[in-house]
């Protein structure tokens, strides 16, 4: 039995649901949020420990290292470029910090040195690509090897311990009940989101990635944009390296290996187009969460590492395929 009111209510509900589904935010992130939810449900069913609050914090801490590196990667991919050297930069920056502390530097000088090292390595990537007109893929394949080799220069390949308490607090302590590492991820999220969506520079990144020729003809100095973008990517990788070395209490020469792929996967899963010009930091953090949940869930289920690699690779393929497909549907 249905009264008129019921029917009206039902109609109103459908309308709300429709307009909610049609809103740009949902259309943009709906797919990824649903995937995230599905993954969480699947892992919770398979492993009861997955849903524990402690595990949630654990996931977020693991995500932080990838997410921060992926923020930087978002700029690079928005430009239609790629940065494969960030895994190596992560390792170098940890080692720079370890050496700085070994030489007796304090916390803040060590942070400054680490950031400077990341910025320098990133700027070099950008400058080589822009000024020599080399594809960023080639440049960063080369510097990936060069930077990775440089990590071992101070210690001849041995790991270096870090004993600075403030540095170690980043990965170990909490503030207002939330780990500091998550605060850093959150603050950088806001900062990068504002830079990309609200500043002239951010706009120029989108325009250059969307159509480089048109950007040049509109007076945008695309070479300068590229160098700044790669510098940001290098700095974000350096911060990521700080977080990682703090969690590990040491600088490992093989730290960050393969992180470039996780970062790229996070960015692409977040809906940023590999062709450039379209994407957001919001998408990137959601993408990083998916990667984090997959990593964590498979660890909980004791899935061997090599299976994890296969699953993550397949996830990237599917994401890119969906990206291409949605674009050809729009055209």
């Amino acid at each position, binding site marked *: 039995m249905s009264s008129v009111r019921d029917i009206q209510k039902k109609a109103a509900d459908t309308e709300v649901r429709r307009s909610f589904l049609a809103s740009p935010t949902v259309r943009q992130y709906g797919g990824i949020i649903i995937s995230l939810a599905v993954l969480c449900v699947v892992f919770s069913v398979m492993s009861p420990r997955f849903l524990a609050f402690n595990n949630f914090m654990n996931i977020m801490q693991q995500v932080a290292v990838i997410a921060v590196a992926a923020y930087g990667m978002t700029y690079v991919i928005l430009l239609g470029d790629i940065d494969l050297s960030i895994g190596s930069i992560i390792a170098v920056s940890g080692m720079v910090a370890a050496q700085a502390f070994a030489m007796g530097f304090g916390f803040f000088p060590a942070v400054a040195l680490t950031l400077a090292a990341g910025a320098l390595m990133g700027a070099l990537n950008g400058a080589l690509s822009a000024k020599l007109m080399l594809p960023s893929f080639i440049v960063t394949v080369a510097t990936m090897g060069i930077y990775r080799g440089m990590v071992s220069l101070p210690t001849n390949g041995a790991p270096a311990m870090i004993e600075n308490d403030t540095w170690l607090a980043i990965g170990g302590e909490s503030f207002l009940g939330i780990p500091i590492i998550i605060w850093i991820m959150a603050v950088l999220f806001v900062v990068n989101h504002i830079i990309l969506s*609200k*500043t002239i*520079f951010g706009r*120029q990144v989108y*325009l250059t990635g*969307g159509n480089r*020729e048109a950007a*040049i003809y509109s007076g945008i*100095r695309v070479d300068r944009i590229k160098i700044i973008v790669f510098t940001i990517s290098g700095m974000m990788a350096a911060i990521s390296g700080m977080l990682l070395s703090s969690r590990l209490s040491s600088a490992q020469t093989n730290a960050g290996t393969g992180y470039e792929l996780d970062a790229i996967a996070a960015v692409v899963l977040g809906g940023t187009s590999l062709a450039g010009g379209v994407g957001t930091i919001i998408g990137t953090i959601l993408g990083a969460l998916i990667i984090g949940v997959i990593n964590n869930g498979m660890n909980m289920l004791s899935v061997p590492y090599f299976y994890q690699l296969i699953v993550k690779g397949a996830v990237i393929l599917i994401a890119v395929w969906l990206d291409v497909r949605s674009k050809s549907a729009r055209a």
Partner: protein
Amino acid sequence: MTAISQTPHAAALKPEGDVVLEIHDIAKSFGPVAALKRMNLTVRRGRVHTLLGENGAGKSTLMKILAGVFTPTSGSIVLNGKPYTPRNPRDARAHGISIVFQELSLSRNLSVAENIFASHEPSRFGFIRDRALNEAAERLIRELGLPVDVRAKVGDLSIAQRQLVEIAKGLSLPADVVILDEPTSSLSDSEAEILFSIIERLKSHGKAVIYISHRMEEIMRLSDDITVMRDGEYVTTTEKSETSIDRLITLMVGRAMNDIYPPREAPRPSPETQPVLATKKLSFAGKFRDVSIDVRPGEVVGLFGLVGSGRSDVMKALFGMLAPQGEILLDGKPVAFRSATQAIRSGIAFVTENRKEEGLVLLHSVERNINMAGLGQLSGPFGLMQASAEREAARAEVKRLAIKTASIDTSTGSLSGGNQQKIVLAKWLQIKPRVLILDEPTRGVDVGAKFEIYRIIRELAATGTAILMVSSELPEVLGLSDRVVVMHDKSVAAVLEADGLTPETVMTYAAGIHA
């Protein structure tokens, strides 16, 4: 077997003058833009049939339909008595239609022989037989009498030699109909002579040749039949013996000049006014030489020239995209722009010829595109964009230029050509330019949007903007300009007062036949 040496198809045994290709009422539209409307053409064996028309008359579109690149929107084609509907260029070649395009389509890193036989290399079990390839290429090159080494890399050849290789490539397969699209535009006289003798031999072998060129003398020398096209439509076909250069030019440009050109809104500046922008003997090796132009505030100067006359490169030099020799003066002071950024800072705006490649970010919204060049004036402290100012600015331009769009958040890629072009204009109006350079401002734009664009040009001139407009549409140049600079063969052929100027006069300078 090549186009010249082949044993003719059975059909080719018929005598000269037989119809080989008939085009009936062919039309082709790209979205709302009609590139070709009801085109008709009859091509006979053993004759050279020239297609004549201004840039944009639809010749290249028609050729691309014959080559299987485009599918016609309507109409039919009959080839050798059978309906002809090529699915792709390969299919067209299999049916005996061979095309030499004006854009070079060669791979620079491959040899001449490899390029000539690209896609039909002599092979065995999928391996290319290098010796057979080189021998076949050698035979063809010798037969055609081309001064080219078949083993040379195409990248090492001159532009003219590459064009000859392109021709050899077009003739490397048997063909009934050979189409040559502006084959002489990059050839010197002696190389052109080689081409003409090849054409004579094709004729004597009973081939039909469709020839496209802007050079009137060679048209009068080579052609048997001449068909004139205008605005995508068939105008007339005559035998060469029954027409003259003057008559052809009149047919080509002679469209009614209605009052789609709005009248001036302010008096012309006096000739004594100091030009905002002037060039003195501007040259760039291989692109243009000794170009001197001046534009006064409130003046519209038209720059007319056929494709390859160097006009587009002059524009690029004025905008800092090329570093020319000679002087560019802004308000009488010499300037040297090293980038577009510097040119824009000096108040120069450039509406480029290709809005999709150089004008717009098609994925982005109308708002984003309109504000693209004026980001600096829409931002506050710390380089933060002011969203409300941005939206207001975009809305104002949409209203001012009557841009038809659902909202300012619509992506520009989904709009019509005319509206896209207006957005490119809007982008530049944002920076309130002192000099506005327009390169083909109405290409691929419907009549309504054309009129709007003309109105805006007039309005800007009335407020003192100096306007330099390149267009290959002669009526447009004559209808809007105060003065017309005509370029021919990479230099200025004439500077003419637009008052009382006829299209025929401009055309004679542009074609380089003015006595």
